[in-house]
């Protein structure tokens, strides 16, 4: 009936599976074939075809039995940050070389309980620290999109770069991502797909390798807003094993996609109009505002005065938490241990193991975090950053209290850039990629990146919508309206 099943959305595949027009096994085979043909993108770093086929067979039996949740039989890619039982899970770091968890993360356990199929583990920046997937121990993931006929390899963004590349190139139907400062939304924008970071606490963090615990949140990366709604519903929910996961009911997010946003108030924050913003991003934003207005929403100029301080606050708080979280990689319980010289004691073991196991960006952030938490600097840096964070959250609280339903901003300050192009830049230039996304993590809010169009070079660009806490359904509905209005259907020309 259909030519390439791997190109389907979750919604279309679900309907075809239920109608018996497609089997989960055939769908999985199509994805495995695409996955193998997509090696040039370096998106998958550990393939699990046997698990996939076994899960697909079980899904087929379940669908036949009439007991099929939405994700039953849907082939997914899983970011390497998620612990998956018996399958390498190493956060793209050498320090977790050979680590095979003896347990399953809550998110993947929920997905598998719902009948989902795991095709393999996906590339990412080491410990999710990066915005271009260039800090991975597996090498760069590559964006399926190119600048017209120019063969320059572009970044799929980061840290969920492998997830973004795999979804954009149809090497799976959808993928899990995680977002600490923009790691779902920026790669989604760079590859023309949808990515949502839920409200902090909506999705359990248990079994996901921790980067910055007060900011980390997992979410779906998908081909449509509807798919994001379906997928998020399966990931979300209270987990007693994560004390920060919210004990709130998970609404039917797909049912929230009414397409009606008449009378909703959309905030346009003036502080996001950055100096030197490319004209194409500016235009994209203006177009998006017009689309929301045409759909009957009211456009309101708003101010989020502390926006400019979000990046420096983030780059104190995230490394501080990372330096604590990554203290566990000491060569004792799992992963890499350095070869020791005669007379080396336990301190040398720690120091050599961590120098060999962590890449340069991770080392840099662990040391920055160590510094800002050290005696004498804790108040000046860490506590000050946490106070600024409170002000950033207050900015959002105030606009929502004034009746704003959602906030529309650009997703990224540029389109995807070339791999290696930022190599000589100082680290802060790379950090600027997160300028529009990082505020959302600091305030714990839900945010979604929606593909809107192509730039002159033929690269996708996205807009971001930010919602009220716990109102992902409403946020997805706004995103759905934007998606329908933009009508983005372009796909990368297959070169891989």
């Amino acid at each position, binding site marked *: 009936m259909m030519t390439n099943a791997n190109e389907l959305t979750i919604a279309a595949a679900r309907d075809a599976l239920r109608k018996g027009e497609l089997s989960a096994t055939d769908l999985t085979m199509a994805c495995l074939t695409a996955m193998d043909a997509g090696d040039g993108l370096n998106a998958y770093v550990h393939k699990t075809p046997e698990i996939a086929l076994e899960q697909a067979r079980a899904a087929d039996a379940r669908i036949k039995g009439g007991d099929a949740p939405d994700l039953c039989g849907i082939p997914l890619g899983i970011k390497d940050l998620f612990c998956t039982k018996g399958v390498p899970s190493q956060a793209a770091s050498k320090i977790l070389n050979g680590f095979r968890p003896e347990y399953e993360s809550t998110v993947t356990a929920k997905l598998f309980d719902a009948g989902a199929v795991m095709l393999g583990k996906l590339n990412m920046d080491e410990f999710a620290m990066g915005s271009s997937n260039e800090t991975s121990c597996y090498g760069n993931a590559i964006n399926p999109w190119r600048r017209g006929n120019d063969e320059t390899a572009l970044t799929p963004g980061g840290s969920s770069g492998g997830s973004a590349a795999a979804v954009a190139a149809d090497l799976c139907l959808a993928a899990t991502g995680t977002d600490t400062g923009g790691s779902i939304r920026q790669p989604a924008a760079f590859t023309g797909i949808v990515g949502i970071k839920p409200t902090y606490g909506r999705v359990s963090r248990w079994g996901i390798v921790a980067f910055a615990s007060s900011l980390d949140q997992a979410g779906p990366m998908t081909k449509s807003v509807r798919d994001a709604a379906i997928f998020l519903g399966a990931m979300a929910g209270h987990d007693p094993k994560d004390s920060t996961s919210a004990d709130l009911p998970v609404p039917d997010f797909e049912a929230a996609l009414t397409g009606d946003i008449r009378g909703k108030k959309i905030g346009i924050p003036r502080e996001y109009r950055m100096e030197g913003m490319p004209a194409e991003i500016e235009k994209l934003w203006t177009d998006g505002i017009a689309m929301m207005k045409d759909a009957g929403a009211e456009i309101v100029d708003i101010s989020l005065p502390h926006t400019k301080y979000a990046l420096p606050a983030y780059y104190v708080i995230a490394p501080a938490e990372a330096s604590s979280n990554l203290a566990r990689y000491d060569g004792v319980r799992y992963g890499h241990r350095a070869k020791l010289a005669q007379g080396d004691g336990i301190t040398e073991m720690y120091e050599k193991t961590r*120098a060999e196991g962590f890449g340069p960006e991770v080392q840099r952030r662990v040391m920055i975090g160590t510094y800002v938490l050290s005696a004498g600097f804790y108040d000046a840096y860490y506590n000050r950053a946490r*106070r600024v964070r409170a002000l950033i959250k207050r900015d959002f609280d105030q606009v929502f209290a004034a009746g704003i339903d959602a906030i529309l901003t650009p997703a990224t300050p540029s389109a995807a850039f070339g791999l290696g192009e930022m190599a000589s830049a100082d680290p802060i230039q790379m950090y600027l990629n997160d300028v529009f996304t990082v505020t959302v993590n600091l305030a714990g809010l839900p945010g979604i990146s929606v593909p809107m169009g192509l730039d002159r070079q033929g690269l996708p660009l996205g807009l971001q919508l930010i919602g009220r806490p716990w109102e992902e359904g409403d946020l997805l509905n706004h995103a759905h309206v934007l998606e329908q209005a933009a009508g983005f259907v372009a796909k990368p020309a297959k070169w891989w």
Partner: protein
Amino acid sequence: MSIDIDTARKVAKLARIRVEEDQLPALATELSGILGFMEQLNEVDVEGVEPMTSVTPMRLRRRADQVTDGNIQSRILKNAPDTREGFFAVPKVVE
């Protein structure tokens, strides 16, 4: 706040990451650059603002103080680089 070579050495030591002596000047420059970027935070008036401890105003739930798991020694040791007699093994700590 600029970081000198001694401070860089101290930070590396605290972080338990070996940095060779000839790498310290570059590390000091890099860390200074990043800290310089953070100096912007000093422009913000934070008088009377409490440092944020939790982004959601929810009380952390407490669980019952009960043993719910156990007897999985071999699984716990399975990923260790070196084990002996049911323990994690490390270089000699006490002479």
